[in-house]
């Protein structure tokens, strides 16, 4: 009986089945077209309709693009060359590219300075963006803001040099004392830096050369796409650390710190950026000591940074909230203090979660820098709407100019977006 039983029900696998290869993929371009474009009648119809619209779009724009005139010196000359045919008048770009890129007052023999600053920018941000590069490159990243300031604004080298020395001395004092108390070290570092800046100011005045190595360019002479890039890069790199501080402050158990952060974030988020820019233009001067004459560029940077740091703080708060409570507890149970737990455990994970949101705000902020054109700064949009369209030569060339501005912005924003996707893949360690 046991035999029959064994044969009818019990089963023992004596060797495991060998792993088999998946079935061959039957493919080829024709099959792809059939599967993806014409799988059913309804889908085939949609494909045809979509192709028709694509045709309309290209039929409208391609002749205009390809038939463009590049060599004329004014819009009327363009029209003569075209002689009634459809075509763009790209001559405005070849004629006025320097104004679109650098503004209309930046001395044209000095264009190499901002260009060099842009090239060096890639070197400076590389170690920040690509964590696999040697950490020693961060040294140049630290020097870069002062170098770029000197290159773009020119003037005596003493200003940026003493600013840099002040930061270095402040940091050294801070690093010396931080083992005892974070707050005392921070205060001492700040005091040391301010002392160096103060003394440096006198030395710089005394050493002021008759003609500086680089010709000084005042802020109101900056313009064009250069101004957008400068505002965008400065404000993004300032608002990220401030946003992190605000997000952590909002989670703090200290009621005053928390209160300040909440009020700041809620106030700034509740006000349109353009209002803040008008405040920067007109009102902010009242808050600084009379006669200090804080530069309009700096005032605008302060306002845009305030605005975007409040948004970034909220995105990071979302990332912090998404972390399981166990991560905080594990860090605590190992004896890490607050700063270590945040820096080593919490923020790396929270920031990784927040990357899409932060990039969203960075891209938005970069495009919002065009709003400065309403407070009569001549960024690329200000240049187009002001000096270029107002000139008799180019009055009426809208499409070409705004297309050019769009392409510039698209290149930068698409680059940021692609980078962030690469970064997310690079940091993916959860293997979900």
């Amino acid at each position, binding site marked *: 009986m046991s035999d029959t039983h064994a044969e009818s029900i019990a089963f023992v696998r004596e060797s495991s089945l060998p792993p088999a290869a998946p079935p061959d993929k039957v493919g080829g371009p024709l099959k792809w077209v059939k599967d993806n474009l014409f799988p059913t009648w309804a889908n085939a119809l949609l494909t045809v309709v979509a192709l028709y619209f694509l045709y309309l779009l290209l039929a409208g724009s391609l002749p205009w693009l390809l038939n463009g005139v590049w060599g004329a010196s004014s819009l009327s000359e363009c029209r003569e060359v075209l002689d009634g045919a459809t075509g763009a008048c790209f001559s405005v770009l070849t004629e006025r590219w320097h104004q679109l890129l650098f503004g209309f007052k930046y001395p044209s023999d000095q264009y190499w300075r901002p260009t060099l600053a842009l090239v060096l920018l890639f070197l400076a941000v590389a170690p920040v963006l690509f964590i696999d590069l040697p950490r020693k490159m961060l040294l140049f990243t630290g020097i870069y803001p002062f170098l770029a300031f000197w290159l773009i604004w020119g003037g005596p080298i003493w200003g940026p040099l003493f600013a840099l020395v002040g930061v270095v001395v402040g940091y050294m004092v801070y690093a010396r004392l931080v083992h005892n108390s974070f707050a005392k070290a921070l205060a001492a570092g700040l005091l040391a830096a301010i002392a160096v800046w103060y003394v440096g100011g006198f030395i710089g005045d005394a050493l002021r050369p008759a003609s500086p190595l680089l010709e000084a360019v005042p802020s109101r002479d900056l313009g064009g796409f250069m101004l957008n890039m400068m505002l965008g890069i400065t404000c993004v790199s300032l608002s990220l650390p401030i946003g992190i501080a605000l997000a952590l402050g909002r989670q703090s158990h200290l009621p005053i710190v928390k209160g300040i952060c909440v009020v700041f974030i809620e106030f700034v988020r509740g006000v349109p950026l353009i209002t803040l820019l008008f405040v920067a233009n007109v009102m902010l001067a009242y808050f600084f000591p009379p006669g200090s004459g804080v530069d309009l560029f700096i005032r605008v940077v302060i306002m845009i940074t305030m605005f975007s740091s409040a948004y970034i703080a909220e995105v990071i708060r979302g990332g912090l909230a998404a972390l*399981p409570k*166990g*991560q905080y*507890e*594990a*860090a*605590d*149970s*190992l*004896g*890490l*203090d607050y700063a*270590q737990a945040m820096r*080593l*455990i919490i923020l*790396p*994970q929270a920031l*990784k979660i927040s990357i899409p949101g932060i990039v969203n705000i960075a891209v938005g902020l970069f495009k919002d820098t065009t709003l400065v054109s309403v407070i009569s700064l001549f960024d690329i949009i200000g240049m187009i709407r002001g000096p270029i369209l107002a000139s008799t030569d180019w009055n009426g060339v809208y499409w070409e100019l705004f297309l050019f501005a769009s392409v510039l912005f698209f290149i930068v924003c698409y680059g940021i977006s692609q980078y962030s996707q690469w970064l997310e893949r690079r*940091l993916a*360690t*959860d*293997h*979900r």
Partner: protein
Amino acid sequence: MAETAQMQVSDEVAIRINNMNKWYGAFHVLRDINLTVHRGERIVICGPSGSGKSTLIRCINALEEHQKGSIEVDGTLLSSDLKNIDKIRSEVGMCFQHFNLFPHLTILENCTLAPIWVRKTPKKEAEETAMHFLEKVKIPDQANKYPGQLSGGQQQRVAIARSLCMRPRIMLFDEPTSALDPEMIKEVLDTMIELAEEGMTMLCVTHEMGFARQVANRVIFMDEGQIVEQNEPEAFFNNPQSPRTQLFLSQILGH
């Protein structure tokens, strides 16, 4: 085994809890807890869910704050002073139900992080220690993987190794096997048994009664935030005194 276990317990007090009380809002979670743990003792805490057993051991390393009474760990009185708390936490290792490994760090980095930053151990030395303990929990070959690539049992063993790298004098286990498949429970329990045999002072919240019988020198039964009964494992399982304990044991051992 039970005899050698008894031998290892010294008179030195590792943890002394006096009249400790804790409330969540108005809810009284822990009521008049008195507990003295000697160096080398292995204590298993069991009880129905919501009885406060996890809260009790989480109070010992200040993951939860108690409102009344005192907790003394290795002679240090637990107060709201952050320096005291950090000192106690670096001496007391803890393993969680959900492992709580750091998913953005490799296994080796998980193990070396706290020694490097809290103990200021040189990186190389910390890595050697980490490899030593990873070998002890039998997963040195996974050192460069990320936690997400490991099975639950392996992750929990890494969590134990991570705690051991801080060379703790006391280990707390908060339901270390409750989130694991039956096949993986054994590998984690084996690691814990090995640890117990080396004389580590351990407090385990667990429902693994076989483990309690084999390893514990004391079993504590909690209900409604109070210690209802505590005894040596033999006496506790064979001859429970309070009706609540009898009911609990009949329910978990009954099938």
